[in-house]
């Protein structure tokens, strides 16, 4: 078990290195470099060369890569090309905002959708199950901005609650105005992950429900609620933890569109701005942060899968 987990962590590390290569190379394919962007119109051959030397861009790519990666590990993300402000400073507040939305979404969205998914698995084929399956399948196939628009339509335009656009800082706001401030991004993200979670948790429980020992319990005459709570649910905890971790990883992607939609001051809007202004340093730094989070969540999902399923630990 432990050796498997260590091996998985090793693979995770290799992935992170590969990812950093991809991200670094991605910003190097084009002729223009950071020095040119920073100097803009004023670039003469001499000060371009001076700037390159100052930024270390005249060194071989491999050395540039190691300098960048080394700085990243020690927490130095470099300075934004567009504004010349250290990236760590730009990120500081926004990081909180994004983490807050992600955590609140996880706290609210995950339990509710798990409950709904498990309920659907308890009564497969019922009207509730069919409606829920149809709605969640449709939601999975819909873009995040449709979910967001429908929620704006319902809450802001229909009922006058919340704000369609989240702007400015959160400081000095009372608890309740903060709730209406963040309600829509969080609700949208909850819907986005709920559609996946409901399907996957339902499938996980149904999978357990179709196993021979459940059939045995039914034949013994064990009451239905006892079968579900004592036999099925306990055994589906592992797969469900796996499903939750995978969906939190999905949040990393979902959060980008949702933050931009609501103009939410988080990391995702920052990286999109970075791409638009071709701020390589920002894209590299934030890209690494997003990918790291994603890789770590995937790792947790895999470890949870090993922990819960002995068959994965001992492959044939």
């Amino acid at each position: 078990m432990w050796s498997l987990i260590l091996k998985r962590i090793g693979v995770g590390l290799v992935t992170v290195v590969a990812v950093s290569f991809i991200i670094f190379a991605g910003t190097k394919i084009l002729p223009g470099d950071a020095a040119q962007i920073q100097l803009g119109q004023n670039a003469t051959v001499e000060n371009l060369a001076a700037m390159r030397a100052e930024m270390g861009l005249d060194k071989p790519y491999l050395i540039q890569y190691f300098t960048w990666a080394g700085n990243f590990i020690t927490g130095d993300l470099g300075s934004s090309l567009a504004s010349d402000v250290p990236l760590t400073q730009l990120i500081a507040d926004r990081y909180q905002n994004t983490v807050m939305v992600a955590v609140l979404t996880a706290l609210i969205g995950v339990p509710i959708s798990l409950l709904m998914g498990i309920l659907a698995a308890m009564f497969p084929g019922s009207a509730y199950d069919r409606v829920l399956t149809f709605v969640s399948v449709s939601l999975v196939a819909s873009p995040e901005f449709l979910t967001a628009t429908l929620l704006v339509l319902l809450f802001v335009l229909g009922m006058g609650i919340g704000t369609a656009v989240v702007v400015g800082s959160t400081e000095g706001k009372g608890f309740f105005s903060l709730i209406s401030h963040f309600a829509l991004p969080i609700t949208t993200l909850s819907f986005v992950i709920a559609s996946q979670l409901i399907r996957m948790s339902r499938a996980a429980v149904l999978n357990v429900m179709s196993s021979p020992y459940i059939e045995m319990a039914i034949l013994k005459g064990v009451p239905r609620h006892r079968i579900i709570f004592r036999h099925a649910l306990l055994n589906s905890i592992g797969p469900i933890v796996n499903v939750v971790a995978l969906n939190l990883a999905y949040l990393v992607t979902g959060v980008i569109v949702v933050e931009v939609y609501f103009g939410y001051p988080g990391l995702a809007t920052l990286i999109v701005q970075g791409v638009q202004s071709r701020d390589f340093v920002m894209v590299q730094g934030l890209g690494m942060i997003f990918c790291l989070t994603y890789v770590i969540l995937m790792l947790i999902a895999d470890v949870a899968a090993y922990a819960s399923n002995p068959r994965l630990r001992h492959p044939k």
Partner: protein
Amino acid sequence: MSTPSETEHFVAPYDEGVTFDELPDAPPRQGYKPSITGWIGIAVVGFWLFIAVAGPFIAPMGENDLPFPDDYSEFQKPRVGAPLGTDVEDRDILTRIMYGAGRTIGISFVATSLAYLVGVILGIGAAVSSPRVDMILSRVNDAFLSLPTIMLGLVVVAAVGSSIPVLIATAGLIYATVVFRLARAIGMEIMVMDYVEAARARGEGTWWVITREIWPNARMPLITDFGLRMIYVILFISSLSFLGLGVQPPQADWGSMVRENLGTLQYGASILPVLAPALAIATLTVAINLIVDDVSAHGGGKLSKRM
């Protein structure tokens, strides 16, 4: 199809909610007869395909024409001559949706086809070649697979800028990784079958095995997965366009239409400029999903047992 081979262990069994288990195990015995939901899906997809091809010819005006120049009395509101209203720049929404259909569907279709071309060739190639080649291909693939797709898209667009060929290549290569994994898994499974061994023992070459044994058996799940993959490519392209990094203005595209008109939500003249293109995407993707589900159910995949 769910027996994971050794190298696959380190990839979480997850691709945006779709596992291989949901694909049909075998080709249908009789011809495919759609159920009611299948017909609904076919009708909606057919409708959008028609608009995609014919849109620019039957649209009431050009995509950047103004139906009511210098008349701002009913700005953005639906009215005669603009049934879905007009957008932030007073262009007709209906016209732009008709023009955008071809772009959104066309880009996604070409990108998905590219993903299939690359993914299937490399995937089946990995399945039939030596373990070393297979391992190298799979490891490289896993590195790409372990990145959030939209993040890869952002890095590429940041590096080379956005244009339609770049969008197609980016989406095609990103989703080729998923197709590779599926094609390889299916190929591997068929390679250990007795009939392949029999063919090998007869002295048939690799090409013969690929075309006569693997392809006929791998065809059905791969074609079904094409539909699913196309859904994700449509969502990916639309999301990039929505972020302002996909199809560039003034060209209409469903994702960028949502972005352009996002401001209307604040002063609320009409919600249609945002809602209409978003709904267009959703009706298309949900309809494709209906067809895929129906075909899977017909093919006797595990999906039918679960639904």
